[in-house]
């Protein structure tokens, strides 16, 4: 039986792993290679690196980070953040990334998804969607530009269209829950997961082990991603997976 995946997320700025505090102030968390190795040894099933660089120079250093991380990792990893062209996708894959996420650029130009899928394969094309509840519930709007811009596009419709074009997986972040530690948005996750044929990674709101159990069962997610609870050492990946196994969620131990 296929296992549910636990995926720590690392934000990269200027070659370092950072963490946002109070909407913007960045705190240094550590070296990407050290942290990648740490999470791998703890039993992480995959890692996601998001490039949050503010400048072009910092963006260049991300390729170097990807290359160094690829050298030590024996598990799959995904890179994203500001990816806008097939050229960038290919370069990230050449540096050793297994998958690449696209977000804002895919909304602006959905053909980018088809291009990545046909040239590099659907399996490496992950659609990242930031979704925000609208109209009092049961529907969600796609946000772009790191959650700063509204698009008026319905998240479910967008995910269906993106999968038709060749997206192989969806990384779904609840804008409402992100950073709140109040639990994943189960309704959003279950709605999208039921609407598409590809795996869905739930993100945004993880506060404790119960949240992971819920999103991987009721929420119908195939994987769950979190940052703070791992970086802050509230939960180790190993402890979390032991709880999941006890609750009957299939995990790799």
């Amino acid at each position, binding site marked *: *039986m*296929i*296992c*549910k*995946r636990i995926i720590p997320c690392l934000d990269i700025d200027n070659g370092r792993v950072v963490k946002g505090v109070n909407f913007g102030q960045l705190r240094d968390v550590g070296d990407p290679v050290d942290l990648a190795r740490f999470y*791998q040894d703890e039993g992480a*099933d995959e890692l996601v690196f998001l490039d949050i660089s503010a400048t072009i120079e910092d963006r260049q250093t991300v390729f170097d980070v990807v290359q160094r991380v*690829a*050298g030590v990792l*024996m*598990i*799959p990893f995904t890179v994203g953040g500001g990816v806008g062209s097939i050229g960038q996708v290919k370069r990230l*894959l*050449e*540096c*050793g*990334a*297994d998958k690449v996420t696209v977000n804002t650029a895919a909304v602006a130009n959905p053909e980018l998804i088809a291009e990545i899928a*046909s040239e*590099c*394969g*659907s*399996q*490496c094309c992950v659609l990242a969607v930031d979704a925000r509840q609208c109209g009092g519930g049961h529907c969600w709007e796609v946000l772009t530009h790191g959650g700063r811009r509204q698009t008026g596009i319905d998240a479910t419709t967008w995910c269906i269209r993106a999968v038709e074009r060749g997206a*192989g*997986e969806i990384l779904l972040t609840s804008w409402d829950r992100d950073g709140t530690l109040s639990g994943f948005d189960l309704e959003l996750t279950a709605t999208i997961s039921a609407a598409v*044929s*590809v*795996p869905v990674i739930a993100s945004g709101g993880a506060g404790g082990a119960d949240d992971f159990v819920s999103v991987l069962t009721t929420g119908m997610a*195939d*994987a769950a991603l979190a940052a703070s609870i791992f970086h802050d050492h509230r939960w180790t990946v190993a402890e979390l997976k032991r709880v999941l196994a006890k609750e009957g969620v299939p995990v*790799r131990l």
Partner: protein
Amino acid sequence: MVELINFGGGNLGSMRRALERLDVSYRVSSGARDLTGDHGMILPGVGAFGAAMAGLKRAGLKQRLNEAVRGGSPYLGICIGMQLLFGASEESPGVAGLGLIDGEVVRFSAGKVPQIGWNRIEPLSGGSRTPGFVYFVNSYHCRPIDETLATYRAEYHIPFCAALRCGNITAFQFHPERSGPFGHRLLKEWCDDL
């Protein structure tokens, strides 16, 4: 020494790094003249059946690879490199594969497709093989007519062939290079047998 076959479509990066971590020397073969068949050959990769066959043909590798495998050179096919061993795939109707193993390549008919993630493989024949978790990314799976060729099986809504062995041919549907220490051990064992 291993010859790593580059047909232009697969992502060689992760396999190269896995071989480097395992201290296995390799060289990349991108054309018929590069592929000697004097060493073990690995065809890693991802992507569609039709695109991969087209890539092999374009590089002049299809015939050379066929000759080398038929001549007895050890071959390790990973993911699409396993599926290409068969004559055809549901993924790309009308495209001829290498036709080295009889059987078919069919699409998963239940659950999320592609299968993405860690799944447990169980050894089917004795020897030193042990069960373990490996990383899969596949929409299609192989069904060899001779079921005794399967060395490991796994389950994704149905049981399927996760690995096979047929003389000098070894094939893994999963990605050993992304499957932690267990996957690296399987890769190393194949290299050590050369």
